[in-house]
């Protein structure tokens, strides 16, 4: 795409996000009366509760998770110079998986509170993020880190499969369900915290763009341009861990967004300039996940599809289509 078209496309994406968000907020809400409309005489405005407690958090987390996963995917793809990398390659989410798995499969919750699952997943991701950070201090080439991430994932899934084979059917079921991901668990009251965390992370990741641009040339060339690859890599790990921790905690693992969107963004915008790619990923990621959720919402009367089903179902053919049309990633 011609660079002069970038701004119009960003604006188009923003408008599209707005329209889909409005649709997802109000679709099929028959009894909706907005707060400012008169609802005296009745104590509970049911439509408004649905909007506030169900739809708003759902739309909100779609935007956050979509954008966050896409950005993390971009960070990983550039760090490893591999379009097949995604937010989960470092094995950060294995931490969430393991902790949630242990707590669900053994039936002994780490933290028995209303937010127990959220905290468990978050702590798991952070601990594993720290572990990987520790490894990264001993490692010169990023590609070794990719291998370590892979090993960590295999290791934790081995532990989990042992736990699975000896856990009760109910516990197993709840773990499998957690693994399917959900955009419907966030509560209105949590929006504030998530927003602030997300904004801080976004701001920090913007400081990585200079290094990412240089890393496209390879690690040696990046160092020759004054980029301390090791330090930048550590920053990327920290920020990715926090992003993944935040999103996995509230939504469980969401497949495919972090892998598809960065590739789409690169193909669509035809650039390696990460300042552009950053916003492209943020917007396309949000747009993509919102769209997936609209489909779930539309199909709800007929059948229920988990979010992970839809993201892969739409994402995979989309990438194939783009590759066929454009030839290059």
């Amino acid at each position, binding site marked *: 795409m011609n660079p002069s078209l970038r701004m119009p496309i960003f604006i188009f994406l923003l408008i599209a996000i707005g329209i889909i968000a409005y649709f997802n907020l109000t679709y099929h809400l028959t009894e909706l009366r907005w707060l400012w409309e008169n609802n005296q005489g009745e104590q509970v405005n049911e439509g408004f509760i649905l909007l506030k407690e169900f739809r708003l958090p759902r739309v909100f987390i779609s935007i956050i998770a979509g954008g966050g996963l896409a950005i993390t995917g971009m960070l990983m793809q550039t760090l490893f110079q591999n379009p097949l990398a995604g937010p989960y390659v470092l094995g950060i989410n294995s931490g969430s998986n393991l902790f949630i798995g242990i707590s669900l499969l053994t039936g002994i919750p780490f933290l028995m509170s209303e937010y127990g699952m959220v905290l468990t997943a978050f702590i798991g991701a952070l601990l594993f993020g720290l572990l990987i950070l520790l490894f990264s201090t001993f490692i010169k080439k990023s590609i070794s880190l990719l291998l370590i991430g892979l090993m960590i994932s295999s290791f934790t899934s081995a532990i989990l499969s042992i736990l699975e084979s000896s856990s009760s059917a109910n516990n197993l079921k709840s773990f499998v369900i957690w693994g399917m991901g959900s955009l419907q668990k966030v509560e209105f009251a949590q929006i504030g915290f998530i927003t602030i965390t997300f904004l801080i992370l976004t701001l920090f990741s913007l400081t990585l763009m200079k290094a990412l641009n240089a890393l496209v*040339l390879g690690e040696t060339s990046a*160092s020759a341009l*004054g980029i301390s690859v090791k330090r930048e890599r550590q920053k990327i790990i920290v920020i990715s861990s926090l992003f993944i921790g935040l999103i996995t905690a509230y939504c469980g693992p969401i497949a495919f967004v972090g892998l598809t969107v960065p590739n789409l963004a690169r193909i669509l915008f035809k650039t*390696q300039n990460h300042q552009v790619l950053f916003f492209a990923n943020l917007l396309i990621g949000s747009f993509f996940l919102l769209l997936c959720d609209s489909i779930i919402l539309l199909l709800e009367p007929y059948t229920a599809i988990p979010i992970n089903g839809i993201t892969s179902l739409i994402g995979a053919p989309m990438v194939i289509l783009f590759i066929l049309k454009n030839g290059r990633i």
Partner: protein
Amino acid sequence: MILNNLQFGYQVPYLTSDFLEFNLGQAIPLIGANGAGKSTFLKTIAGLIPHSKGEIIIENQSLTKLSLQERSKKIAYVPSTPPLIDQMRVNEYIALGRTPFLGLFGNLQQKDEEIIEQAILKLGLTPYKERFIHELSDGEKQLCTLAKALVQDAPVILLDEPSAFLDYANRNRIVELFKNLAKQENKLFIFSTHDIDLIDREFQEVLYIDVTENKLIKGNISLNKDAILEKAFNRNLGSFH
């Protein structure tokens, strides 16, 4: 640029140099047998490989004390492989040379844009600047890497085998370009090469690696070509003629 009593190689030192001084405004080829340490030498000076002893001084500043970013303002390094990048335009690629000068968020300023534009003009890349790197020929790609090194605004530019992927005509042209640019911009170009005939024709001063003593030496190739080649390649090339 002054190299003083350097010992290359981090854990196993295998290349040394005495006191060597280079003036800006010239291009110097670096020759040596395969595996003698040409790349190690270039990378060490660029600060990509730590060295165990000695000093590198550019414009009266010792490089060892500089951070990676400060160092990259003194030395530009161009690796031997041409850029293999998809979806990147020529001007975007050249702009990466400004990385050491950019702020926290990495945005290009007016001044950066001007420097980039000048480099593009200087190397005649204007018709290509909106094209994608992967669409260019090897010669054009090499010009782009050179442009990137130029915008880095460093007094010293190191190039690892810049002519390896070029055809004969382009090899001549790029070496010619090094000489001219060095003079015009008052920079020091050091580039490694295997092209002895070309060097012999175009240059007088060369850097070579004496394989018997593992030592980096500056010599005059037009005066004692055979001696230099013998030391650099450990055999008497003259006897083959």
